């Protein structure tokens, strides 16, 4: 038995701008620059159909994307029902539905790429 088994360095929850993987973000911004203007008002989350049923938070997904927390993001985005209410209420006219589509597209590709490696 490893006597040090209980002693491991814990993973950091900190968003570290020195290390974050911005591939997904860059992809989304390339095809949907309107995402740049998000001001995290939460209007999307407030109206979200999926958000009314579960703790799905589309605003936070946008933030996860902007902060490079792509690990949990791919699974989280799967709860989206694509109804499009978010885009309709967005005060900055961010095409959120396309942001979701782009996340799905690129994270699927990245996942496949990681599988290959």
């Amino acid at each position, binding site marked *: 038995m490893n006597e040090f088994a209980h002693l491991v360095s814990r993973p950091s*929850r*900190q*968003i*570290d*701008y*020195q290390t974050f993987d911005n591939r997904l973000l860059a992809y989304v911004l390339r095809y949907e*620059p309107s995402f*740049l*203007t*998000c*001001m*995290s008002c939460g209007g999307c989350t407030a109206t979200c159909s999926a958000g009314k049923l579960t703790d799905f938070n589309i*605003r*936070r997904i946008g*933030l*996860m994307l*902007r*902060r490079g*927390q792509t690990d949990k993001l791919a699974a989280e985005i799967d709860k989206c029902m694509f109804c499009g209410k978010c885009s309709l209420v967005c005060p*900055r006219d961010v095409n959120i539905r396309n942001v979701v589509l782009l996340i799905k597209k690129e994270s699927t590709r990245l996942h496949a790429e990681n599988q290959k490696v």
Partner: protein
Amino acid sequence: MEKEQKHVAVIGAGIAGLHTANLLAQSGHKVTILEKEKYPGGHLNQWHHLFPDHSSPEWIISGLLDEQLQFDHLKMISSTEITSIEKNNGHFAINAGNELRIYADAVVISTGFKLFDARQKEEYGYGLFKNVITSADLEQSLKSGQPLTTASGKTPSRVAFIHCIGSRDAKCGNTYCSKVCCITGVKQALEISEMLPETEIFCFYMDLRLYGSKFDDLYLQAQKKHKIQFIRGRLSEAAETHDKRLQIKAEDTLSGRPLRMEVDMIVLLAGMEKNEAHQMFSSTKLLELDEHGFFKSKNIQLTRNETTQPGIFIAGTCICPMSVNETIENAGAASILVNRYLEHQQLTNHHE
């Protein structure tokens, strides 16, 4: 009846003082402006561009000074600091350095604000780390026309603007909002981005208080065109790394996670504070100050420019933090109240 010429002393030749003085002179009053510095213009002399139109403040100062030339009865005494003011029979005796003593029927105080000393926020390392500068320092740098560089002469690849320095902070005793720093930050971020398009810019804010007309347009432009990123969270500390960059820590409150970042430069958006000059007025019990040390208005809604002492008026940022255009408006309002006061005084004297 022949109108008797009254004498008004205006203390402080910033834009509030200059504008009030001009308007009073135009109304026919004799006006003396007292300025402690060598040149008029106040803080604006150090400023490069104004928000929201990026115009240069020089034209405002020179415009106000040009206007002065048409009034023979307006006089400015610079390099003169007030030592005390006494009130006698409704008139004021103002004592300044150099044995100067001026008598006036009314006094307008337009002594402005003091820029918050960012060294007080030790955790941000201003005065300690060379790449931590204030918004005022940045403005000077922009005014110099030289490209912005880090202390070691490199083009910064990442710059962070930190909002609310010395504002909304009980730790330094200023619990109020300085109001203009948010938009200053956005304006300066835009200017840096224009100058250094490759530079990544972040703004750490608590609330973006972009209250003015066209302010939000700048915000949108900053996001859309310049890809400036806004992170909602107050900076907790800055520290110098081994390669002389700065490590900063904040919470990205919107995602509820602590955040760490290395930047090449930090710009602290220093707020506005009460001027030390205020103490002189309150210690002699001549005027009352509000809880933040600014001059107290007789009525904050109706007569913002009247103090608790009849005959002494206030204009501009000695009342509270204000933007340039608000200051000008405020100075206009002050001159109206002074006029009304002097007219009333004339009538009373006449009846007597």
